[in-house]
């Protein structure tokens, strides 16, 4: 299973303490990795089809990027071998521009139905489930906002997510973020969140890695999910979980 990482803060932070731990705990996935972040409202993505581990070392570029990248929102994805061909274009995060923002997206899960989705505006022509899920959610959300322009982002996205799991039953965990806001959705497995002790800074770390990334798993708050017909949608901005809704 691919693994996901997100960090959200009220100001620019590096994830230099947490990204290497994320890589270390995801070392079984050796089919590519990616880090996405924002600078001045623009998306930047660095990714590779190489394994996150080379020998007993975290990939050199990944280590260096972890130290250097600072942003209010940082997403990362480490790809498992089951996800198809080993190509850089298949590594995540993916990005697109809609609703007046640049968005970053990364996904882990399985869905046979959604793999066949054909969007009128594909993000990627290649066969990649993450791209189909992103397109489905984006298209559904845009349709919602077009039909009900006065509704909130959360409401529109929640309807699109509900539509996703209803029309294409499957396993979904994804992060979707712009430069200010991070949405996290899951209908299987679990997400964990961690707020470090105050002196270390005001930020929130989320991951799919079981047990969390630090040596104190009890400090991680789990959002488990057992019913794939429903789902949870989290809204995060800065270092705070602002809203959690069950679909």
């Amino acid at each position, binding site marked *: 299973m691919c693994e996901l990482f997100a960090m959200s803060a*009220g*100001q620019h932070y590096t994830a230099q303490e947490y990204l290497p731990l994320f890589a270390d705990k995801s070392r079984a996935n050796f089919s590519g990795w990616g880090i996405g972040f924002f600078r*001045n*409202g623009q998306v930047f993505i660095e990714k590779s089809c190489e394994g996150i581990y080379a020998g007993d070392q975290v990939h050199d570029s990944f280590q260096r990027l972890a130290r250097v990248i600072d942003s209010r929102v940082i997403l990362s994805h480490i790809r498992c071998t089951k996800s198809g061909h080993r190509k850089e274009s298949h590594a995540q995060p993916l990005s697109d521009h809609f*609703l*007046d*923002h640049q968005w970053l997206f990364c996904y882990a899960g399985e869905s046979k139905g959604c793999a066949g989705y054909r969007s009128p505006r594909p993000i990627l022509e290649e066969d990649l489930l993450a791209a189909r899920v992103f397109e489905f959610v984006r298209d559904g959300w845009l349709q919602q906002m077009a039909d009900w322009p*006065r*509704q*909130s*982002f*959360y*409401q529109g996205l929640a309807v699109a997510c509900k539509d996703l799991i209803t029309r294409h039953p499957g396993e979904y965990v994804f992060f979707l973020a*712009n*430069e*200010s*806001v991070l949405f996290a959705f899951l209908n299987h497995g679990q997400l964990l*969140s961690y*707020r470090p002790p*105050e002196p270390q800074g*005001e930020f929130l770390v989320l991951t799919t890695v079981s047990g969390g990334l630090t040596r104190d798993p009890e*400090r991680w*708050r789990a959002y488990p999910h057992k019913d794939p017909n429903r789902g949870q949608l989290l*809204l995060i*901005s*800065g270092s*705070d*979980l*602002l*809203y*959690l809704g069950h679909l």
Partner: protein
Amino acid sequence: MCDLFALCASQYYSATRSLPLFAVRGRQNVHGWGIGFFRKKQPVVEKSKEKVYQDGRLHGSFQRLARVVASPIILAHIRYKSSGRVDECHAHPFVLDFWGQSWIFAHNGKAPAIESYRSSNLPALEAASDSARAFEFLRDCFLEAEPRRREVSFFEVLKESLYRLFRLYPGEYNFLLTNGCFLWGFTNHRQLLLLKGSERLEDALLLTTIEEGLSPENWQKLTAREGSLGKIVLAAGGDLLLVADLEP
């Protein structure tokens, strides 16, 4: 009755058009004004006890600040006193800290019941008004909830706090609350008006209590639904993120 204003954008933005219009349309509020924003996570508040509009002119400082202040979130308040003296310390917005962050708060409404509230936490706001006590009350609720911060969302704590507020100190509360990263709004009387993507004003999200809005555009009126205790609004990055009714 006081009036509230907020601008919310994804980047640093000035409210050069909308803030003066807000002041002009809210000029019946003659007991002071204030503008609040964040600079590098630090709250900055400029306020005055003077009239925002006098002898056909906007207050000079208000005008200049409207041109100069740039921030992703800007709050403003024009005061018509329903509680407390007319001086600078009673002008809004107010600043308090909780959950490891500074917060800027501005209130509009009448809630005499809460004037008797005495916070057990420090600091206390100097102002002797319902607005100052209401902010302290909310701060205290969040401080009390801090050990649960890992478990609950901000929305849940805000909701709990508002239930307690209405049970113990019923009144009229419209308020704006921001940490510079996101902006919460609440209304249980009058209304909040929202506009996003204005062609005449700033291309940001604008909020105000001014009934007709600040431009002849399609302002969205947010009011407490009949039977609900009020409406909660959340904005960040120039977007309306959440709208929820506070059910009884």
